[in-house]
């Protein structure tokens, strides 16, 4: 007995063999087409080139699979007389690639842009036309190495984004691009790694792989260990509760121009970390809503760590030196680097031999009344003494000058 599956396979294979071996039945053969289109000088009256590179076509995934010209240019099947009508119907990739086409139709590329002139992206804009190769092939327009240039062909100038022209090109400043282009690491993130290939959606669309809802998972595809740390930390725990005010990857690391923290241009370079964290931790609204302590930046800046950092010193502690970064935990958590029991170790990373005295006092509050009474008292005494003494000095100087002026008048 022949099963239904096997029968189907036999029928389809036979059909394919007939279709391949007897193309004349289904219209002109590739050789017929190339008789004219193989001429590199062939152009329309308007000067549009009509040349088809037969070598590239043969090497393409369609050429290798034996797909003929008329399989895509389907309306040519009906033609007998050549040259054919000057205008052909556009190629419909969906006739074979149904799923991918549907995804593109749903994506931003399939719909007119908001408020802009409608721009509809066609398959060939990314994949090429006759020379389509699989993404694994280094020569493919969609090979990892070539993706940035393929996307930037439009996104560099033609397409405006809300973040301004050239925003996409910032990717070329990133370490992702450096890994790709300089280190030749094809696993590095390209445009499609984060935005998806066919189903690209704008960032404010919840479906988007780069929306706040999905960005953690998207980055975690490669940075799995960091995703785990993040989800265990205070930010990640709230993120898991759908509190979207917490920072996600891109809030600290920026988006396209992500660089290593050791790079001076990185938003999380040692001297810039304080500014990044205080965007939220000094924000009055967030502080009220989530009960955060504010003035974190002010108190850090006033400390030696903060001041040195402002002057570009990278060896001193910044926020993350003590609090950690991806998996930041509150000081009440015994696993937190700033839990009182762990302070000696945390501080000891820079201050060898740091003992328990490091935890007898508070950071960020050097001379606030409620936190360090004695330091506060000393500060107040100094302010009073300075103000008093300077006033007395100025009074004496004024009196001295006054007497000298009077003496001069009299003479």
């Amino acid at each position, binding site marked *: 007995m022949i099963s239904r599956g096997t029968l189907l396979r036999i029928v389809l294979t036979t059909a394919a063999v007939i279709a391949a071996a007897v193309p004349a039945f289904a219209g002109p053969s590739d050789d017929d087409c190339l008789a004219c289109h193989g001429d590199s000088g062939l152009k329309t009256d308007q000067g549009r080139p009509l040349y088809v590179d037969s070598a590239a076509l043969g090497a393409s995934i369609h050429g290798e699979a034996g797909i003929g010209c008329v399989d895509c240019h389907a309306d040519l099947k009906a033609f007998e007389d050549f040259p054919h009508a000057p205008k052909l119907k556009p190629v419909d990739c969906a006739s074979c690639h149904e799923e991918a086409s549907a995804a593109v139709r749903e994506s931003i590329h399939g719909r007119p842009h908001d408020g802009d002139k409608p721009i509809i992206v066609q398959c060939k804009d990314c994949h090429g036309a006759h020379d389509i190769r699989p993404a694994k092939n280094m020569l493919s327009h969609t090979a990892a190495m070539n993706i940035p240039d393929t996307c930037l062909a439009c996104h560099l100038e033609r397409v405006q984004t809300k973040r301004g022209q050239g925003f996409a090109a910032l990717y070329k400043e990133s370490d992702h691009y450096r890994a790709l282009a300089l280190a030749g690491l094809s696993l590095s993130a390209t445009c499609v790694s984060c935005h998806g290939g066919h189903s690209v959606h704008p960032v404010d669309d919840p479906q988007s792989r780069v929306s706040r809802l999905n960005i953690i998972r998207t980055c975690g595809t490669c940075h799995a260990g960091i995703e785990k740390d993040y989800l265990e930390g205070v930010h990640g725990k709230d993120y898991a509760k759908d509190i979207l005010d917490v920072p996600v990857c891109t809030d600290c690391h920026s988006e396209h121009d992500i660089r290593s923290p050791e790079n001076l241009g990185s938003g999380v370079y040692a001297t810039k970390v304080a500014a990044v964290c205080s965007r939220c931790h000094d924000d009055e609204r967030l502080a009220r809503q989530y009960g955060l302590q504010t003035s974190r930046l002010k108190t850090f800046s006033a400390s030696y760590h903060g001041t040195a950092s402002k002057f570009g010193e990278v060896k001193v502690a910044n926020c993350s030196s003590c609090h950690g970064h991806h998996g930041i935990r509150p000081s009440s958590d015994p696993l937190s680097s700033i839990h009182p029991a762990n302070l000696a170790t945390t501080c000891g990373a820079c201050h060898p031999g740091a003992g328990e005295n490091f935890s007898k006092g508070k950071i960020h509050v050097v001379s606030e009344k409620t936190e360090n009474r004695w330091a506060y008292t000393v500060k107040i005494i*100094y302010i009073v003494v300075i103000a008093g003494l300077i006033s007395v000095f100025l009074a004496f100087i004024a009196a001295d000058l006054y*007497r000298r002026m009077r003496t001069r008048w009299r003479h």
Partner: protein
Amino acid sequence: METLTTSPLIRDDEIFLRMNLAERIQHILLIVSFTLLVLTGLPLMFYELRLFKSVFSFENAFAFRGLLHRGAAVLLIVDIVWHTGHTVLTRRGRDNFRELMPRAKDARDAVSLFGYNVGLARWLYRKGILRGFFDRHPFWRFENPPEYGRYNFIEKLEYLSVAWGSLVMILSGFFMWNVELSLRIFPLWVHDIFVIAHGYEAMLAFLAIIIWHMYNVHLNPEVFPMSKVWLNGKITGHELKTLHPLEYRKILAERQQAQKAREDRSGAAR
């Protein structure tokens, strides 16, 4: 006040030594170390000023700043050790130190100088207001400026401020320099006091020098553009008479006595 008439025993152009070479070098070392300390320390208090940021923009600027600050601190400490030795071990140093000790007269002098300069009480007295009070307490009329000895209350205040300030700065600075040592001995909140004290004491010292000392030795019309004592150490008989009348009288009395003794001796010999 009886006006001091020029005595043949102290000529107006006679030169007296107010600061000897050692003291002048000590003062110059103090200027150098203090200036360096202020320049390299102040940016930590005023980290928002763009000026400081542009000055410290070259590579390793901040580490270099720290190195200079601690170097200047060592210089200051050496200077203070030298000065202390000078004060304890030399006759001149001990005499000067005794003269620098504050007395009740210094407070009276300060009040009386201010009152004299303002001249309000004098004016009231002349108008016959509160005459009874002023007759009973002539001090409060401030008719004349106070008379000073070798050091007036301004100079004493400055000297003692430097002594106190150096003590605070060296102690707190030492523990800030050696954080690990400091925190082996003190809890963090005590160390925080060092940090606070170091910063505010620095502000106090800086303002005092810029306002008070600079006025008294530079901008004051009497010495403008600058008193040269710190360079040549010299003061004339005339300056001694006007600025330090009590010391002038003391020297005069000593010389009169010596002259008298000489005359007595020569009289006896005759």
